[in-house]
């Protein structure tokens, strides 16, 4: 019997190595896998490359990882926010490297990795600083920039429900980057509100098929017994 559920976030992130590239789901706080990030913080891995839309909000989650100097490099679209003080400080101190990627290109590059493509020509960013030193090409009268896929060693994502085969559904706009990041990592770890028995998810409505997910952890207080 295949059971991808794990009893704790600690167990789920135990093998994240120093220097790993870790995608972290979420747009702002919606879909942010807080329990997995807390576990990663406690686990202690360093020199991480983080891929997320933002660079942390407030003092918890991704912001805490940055505050504790676990992040060497961040790939994101919108680091600067009113409550991104820990990133701001690390960046100004030269302690963190930033690769700024337009949000749609970020999604497309993660998706390109998940689709096994070698590179894509995307129109976003053409003629701007973002495309400086990048290969460009005119195709059918439109200008494109060549962008490469973003792969990860681990993806930490938050979903609504999962089953022991790793199938996932999300909740509202907390879906955001989760399904893409699940496709782009060697090891995808999902924290979910509930683990449901096999068959508890409508096969027509599964958003992330289990083939993209290696580990599932229920983090809700009202966790249910799995199949």
């Amino acid at each position: 019997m295949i059971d991808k559920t794990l009893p704790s976030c600690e167990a789920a992130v135990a093998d994240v190595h120093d220097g790993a590239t870790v995608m972290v789901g979420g747009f702002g706080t919606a879909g942010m896998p807080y329990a997995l990030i807390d576990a990663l913080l406690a686990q202690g891995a360093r020199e991480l490359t983080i891929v997320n839309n933002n660079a942390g909000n407030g003092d918890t989650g991704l912001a805490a990882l940055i505050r504790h100097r676990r992040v060497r490099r961040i790939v994101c679209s919108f680091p600067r926010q009113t409550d991104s003080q820990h990133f701001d400080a690390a960046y100004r101190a030269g302690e963190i490297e930033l690769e700024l990627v337009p949000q749609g290109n970020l999604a497309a590059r993660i998706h390109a990795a998940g689709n096994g493509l070698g590179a894509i020509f995307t129109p976003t960013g053409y003629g701007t600083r973002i495309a400086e030193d990048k290969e460009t090409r005119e195709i059918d009268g439109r200008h494109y920039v060549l962008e490469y896929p973003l792969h990860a060693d681990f993806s930490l994502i938050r979903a609504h429900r999962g089953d022991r085969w790793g199938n996932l559904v999300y909740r509202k706009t907390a879906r955001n980057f989760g399904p893409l990041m699940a496709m782009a990592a060697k090891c995808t770890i999902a924290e979910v509100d509930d683990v449901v028995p096999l068959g508890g998810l409508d096969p027509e409505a599964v958003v992330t098929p289990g083939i993209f997910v290696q580990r599932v952890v229920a983090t809700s207080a009202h966790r249910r017994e799995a199949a």
Partner: protein
Amino acid sequence: MNRLSRDAIAARVARDIPEGAYVNLGIGLPTRVADFLPADKEIFLHSENGLLGMGPAPAPGEEDPDLINAGKQPVTLLTGGCYFHHADSFAMMRSGRLDVCVLGAFQVSVYGDLANWSTGAPDAIPAVGGAMDLAIGARQVFVMMDLLTRDGASKLVAECSYPLTGLRCVSRVYTDLGVFAVGAQGARVIETVDGVSLDDLRRLTGVPLEPATHEENAP
């Protein structure tokens, strides 16, 4: 000189959005356009974080942290709306499915170049978000902004001095002093606010301005 309030600019933009349009309202000022869309018409609001058919803000106490817009404010979903992931959401933009995108700007050139993501200050922390994707991703990009900076410099310019968000992407500029069509032909004045003349706008902006033709007047 008469100036439109920000709400009045938003209302003016709303007038140019037809029923059935798929529309993305950028973070900040453009969000106000939603308040002026006619209640009796169905217009589809897209939020790039993954929803279509975005409704108004929820009643106090009804906020759901998993249901937010691109500005990370709580919103609602209309009956008939739906959710999707980021790749599908930006596919809608990139493949030209959005009819209108409304954005703020630091500068717009008479040719439709847009600068709205960075002032280029050397010590600023850069952040672009979805601005570049939106700039190139809608059939029509509407900019709403004050025509002048607080220092009186025109934000409608011959050439952007701030870092570009997108090349030749803006079609209309809605300001407190007038509405402009921009593009390959340069800037055209579609309308001015009461008491502001074409020559006033020429003087304030310092760029060549002509009245819009009949065709240019049609949004």
